[in-house]
């Protein structure tokens, strides 16, 4: 039991840490988007120095800003997942996790994970865009595991909802 408590405590700490780091990342992306306008000339000069005068500067700047907006959206979706996960962990700590509310939370996480998967596809498109601009960007491969996780979470939410119903029924049994 003590071991479980320690794992639970560590899990809550990790999720809180992720929430903080994620919040700082979102803040960073927002600041970067806002700063990209006043220091537009400086960024263009750096890009031209690195990639040469043939670079499609307008396209590259637009692509960079789209990446930053993508980062903000992904961060918000991740925030949703982490807050729901923290709420579930809190119910585990209180000793009553098998509730309809947690089934709803798992379903919300499943939808958010689906959102992240769609954002992953957008990242793939952005990779192709950067390649067309001849600007360095991260490599991308489709995340099949993520799609399986989405399916698993939707099924788990359904199982949890049924389990909570059964528990409620049992609560009235003498």
């Amino acid at each position: 039991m003590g071991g479980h408590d320690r794992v639970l405590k560590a899990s809550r700490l990790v999720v809180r840490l992720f929430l903080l780091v994620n919040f700082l990342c979102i803040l960073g992306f927002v600041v970067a988007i806002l700063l990209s306008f006043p220091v537009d000339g400086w960024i263009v000069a750096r890009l031209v120095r690195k990639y040469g005068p043939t670079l499609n500067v307008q396209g590259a700047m637009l692509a960079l800003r789209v990446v930053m907006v993508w980062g903000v959206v992904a961060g918000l979706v991740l925030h949703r997942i982490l807050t729901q996960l923290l709420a579930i962990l809190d119910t585990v700590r209180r000793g009553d996790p098998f509730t309809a509310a947690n089934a709803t939370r798992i379903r919300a996480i499943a939808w958010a994970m689906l959102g992240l998967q769609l954002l992953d596809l957008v990242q793939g498109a952005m990779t192709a865009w950067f390649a067309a601009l001849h600007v360095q960007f991260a490599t991308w491969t489709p995340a099949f595991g993520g799609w399986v996780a989405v399916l698993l979470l939707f099924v788990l939410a359904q199982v949890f909802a049924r389990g909570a119903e059964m528990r409620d029924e049992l609560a009235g049994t003498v």
Partner: protein
Amino acid sequence: MPVVVKLDDVLHARRMTLTELAAAVDISVVNLSILKTGKARAIRFSTLEAICTVLDCQPGDILRFEGGEA
């Protein structure tokens, strides 16, 4: 509710209190009270068996189906 719990009547006939029954069947007074007042949604066979053993009665003495209401 068409199924009515007659535990109170049987207890009265046996001159037994709910607390005494609770101690004899090893079920909390709170749970037996829920059963007695008809607030329980279900009853386990083990609970029914224990009550019938202690009160020396049949399940039909405790539970009765009344009326054709849905």
